[in-house]
């Protein structure tokens, strides 16, 4: 299982680095917008019950949170455990970023290995673009990044469409990039387009308490941070892989 172990090692390094970077970018670009949206969520009487009991003042300064008597009552009957605002909430976001960074890296490195492997950081950037197209761009066309309190269709149907779109786009890109025939390229293009002809599940009404410009800002922030995440992930995987395959080759040579 040398190959498996090395893939995991490369993915862990690349995922750790890009996950930490992503956490920093999110703290600056996306999380403040989520906290701001939660103030509309709570004001609108929407009973989702966000994990944070974000009152307007806290949204501006999340660290200045205190669970005193002034905290307004919330419907928490159906909600399970949630991290406390401030550091704990940040820590879980960071953990999720790093863990899924490694998960995304495992997929990227394993798939690229089938195609010959990411030879260097420059090739890694192009693999990163592919990851961005598959996991952010394609599903984001039909299901743009949402803020809390925004109306949305049934969760399970949206998740199904998201997974189907990611799979079809990945397969389509793969056919175009690695089959080298016009017919397969056309089939690949078709696979990329079909999910959007089917269309993502949409809510009955798009009426939302969230201001349009706040949402627009969020869509841009999510898309740009994801792009940087994927490019860094791919480049880091390329660097880590060339280091490891270098030592692996020499080790094998010396043992042979």
């Amino acid at each position, binding site marked *: 299982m040398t190959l498996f172990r090395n893939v995991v090692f490369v993915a862990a390094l690349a995922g750790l680095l890009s996950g930490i970077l992503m956490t920093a970018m999110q703290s600056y670009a996306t999380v403040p917008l989520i906290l701001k949206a939660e103030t509309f969520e709570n004001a609108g009487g929407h009973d989702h019950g966000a994990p944070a009991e974000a009152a307007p003042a806290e949204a501006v300064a999340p660290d200045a949170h205190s669970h005193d008597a002034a905290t307004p009552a919330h419907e928490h009957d159906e909600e399970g455990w949630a991290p406390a605002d401030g550091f704990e909430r940040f820590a879980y976001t960071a953990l999720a970023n790093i863990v899924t960074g490694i998960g995304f890296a495992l997929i990227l490195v394993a798939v690229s290995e089938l195609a010959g*492997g990411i030879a260097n950081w420059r090739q890694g950037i192009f693999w990163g673009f592919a990851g961005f197209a598959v996991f952010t761009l394609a599903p984001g066309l039909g299901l743009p990044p949402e803020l809390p309190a925004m109306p949305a269709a049934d969760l399970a149907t949206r998740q199904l469409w998201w997974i189907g779109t990611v799979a079809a786009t990945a397969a389509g890109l793969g056919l175009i990039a690695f089959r080298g025939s016009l017919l397969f390229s056309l089939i690949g293009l078709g696979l990329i387009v079909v999910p959007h002809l089917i269309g993502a599940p949409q809510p009955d009404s798009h009426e939302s308490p969230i201001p349009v410009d706040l949402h627009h800002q969020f869509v841009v922030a999510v898309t740009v941070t994801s792009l940087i995440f994927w490019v860094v992930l791919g480049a880091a995987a390329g660097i880590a892989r060339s280091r490891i395959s270098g030592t692996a080759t020499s080790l094998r040579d010396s043992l042979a």
Partner: protein
Amino acid sequence: MTTASSVLGSAANSSSRVIQLALAALLGTFIVGFVGFSHMDAVHNAGHDYRHSMAFPCH
């Protein structure tokens, strides 16, 4: 893809190679799926800001 001849670890034959890569991809899919898609309340709440920031379908 000219310099892609280097290999990432030895694999006895090509089918063992594909199996190992498939295992790695499956592990990655499982990790992303669990953090991004799990319907469990605790997992959802812990990853709430992450899910929104990565545009996973949430709520």
